[in-house]
């Protein structure tokens, strides 16, 4: 009994160690794609909203996973924070934030995975989400929302 418990324990450690390698690969992909987005000026600005459309690249399939695309969004927000002006998106509060919309092409399904972030312009602060409303404004007419 004891040995099997020990097995599970070392197994979970081994798994964590492997997962760290996996996490590194994810980081590398995010940096690769993020850098190329900024380098090539793929960030379009419409009414203060930054919009990124991912259509090609070595890691395209990876970014069709919502979690990874979200991480890319976080990375971009973090990097842009000191470099761009924030906008006031909410009608109620006058705080500035940095809305960002990312769309990634899923080549198999011919669909786009779209996520929106509304991060604070200050580090360590949060803003309310308001994304759906923004999507409608920018012409995403037929929108399937998957939770």
């Amino acid at each position, binding site marked *: 009994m004891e040995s099997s418990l020990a097995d599970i*324990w*070392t197994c*979970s*450690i081994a798994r*964590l160690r492997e997962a760290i390698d996996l996490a590194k690969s994810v980081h590398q992909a995010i940096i690769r794609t993020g850098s190329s987005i900024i380098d090539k000026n793929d960030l379009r600005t419409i009414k203060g909203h930054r919009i990124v459309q991912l259509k090609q690249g070595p890691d395209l399939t990876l970014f069709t996973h919502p*979690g990874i695309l979200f991480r890319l969004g976080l990375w971009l927000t*973090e*990097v842009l924070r000191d470099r761009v002006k924030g906008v006031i998106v909410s009608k109620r509060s006058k705080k500035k934030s940095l809305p960002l919309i990312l769309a990634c092409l899923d080549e198999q399904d011919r669909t786009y995975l779209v996520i929106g972030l509304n991060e604070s312009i200050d*580090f360590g602060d*949060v803003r309310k989400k308001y994304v759906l409303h923004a999507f409608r404004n920018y012409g995403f007419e037929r929108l399937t929302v998957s939770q």
Partner: protein
Amino acid sequence: MTSFGKLHVSLAPFSVNPPIIRLAILGLTNQYIQCRISRSEYEKYHSVYHDEVSRLNPPPPVGDTYGLAATSADDMSLRTTDELRFELFRHWTLYDAMFHSSYVAGKMGIWKEQGRKRLTGLLAKMGYVHDACAAHPSDICHSFSIPQTQQLYAHMDMDLKRQLRDKLDAIAPEYGMIELTYPSFVRCYGYHMQPLSAADAVDALNALLDVATGVRIEVELDGTRNGGEWFGGGRVWHAAGRWGTPEAKATATMHDSNQDEHVEEARVEECASWPVRNFWNAFDALEE
């Protein structure tokens, strides 16, 4: 992801035994590094867990306030530390950890050649790279000397590890990096591996949740840089175990008819979609 993040709130009232505290800390850290809660909110919960961790674990060894190493093979304790905003820096090279950290990337402008030079310049000022090599770390100068920053953290000199914080504190403000650390926790894993900080664990678990199966991804092998092998090689990630990457196999047909249940089970496992597999992969990694 989200559900994982909400964990800390739901667990807060029961945070009395170590495994639950560990999970709660992971949930809290996840929310903080993904910018879902503000710093003040983070600190509110952090102080609660800080007290609990200090109460339930032996005090950290003298001279090792940064969670540098486990004290013995059985040291599985949780410790409170100030963590650097570098990604996985205990498990990577210092250069890579800084390069891939979004905080450093933002301050340095890492996507440009100039930004990468600034980062190498910073490391040179700290005395970790010879100035002659400071042009670009992946350049040819490696064949003459392997700077400490290009070594896995685990292989760095102990002295350098100890001085790291002081040197960073002295030099990083020049580059506009003033909030380089935040209060967090590390967990020791005996001699199995380097201590794992809460943010590292969250990172690893998120990677499992997102891409453990369902997508082809290559991971770098340790020691393949700096001429360790012929080329900087990688291998295709393959999740092992019960919920690993599905293979094209026809084992189900080979079972006898009286093993119907087994077949059924195998089929269920094969049909499980990638989010389900990834969830169980991450779950197994969390197992005590």
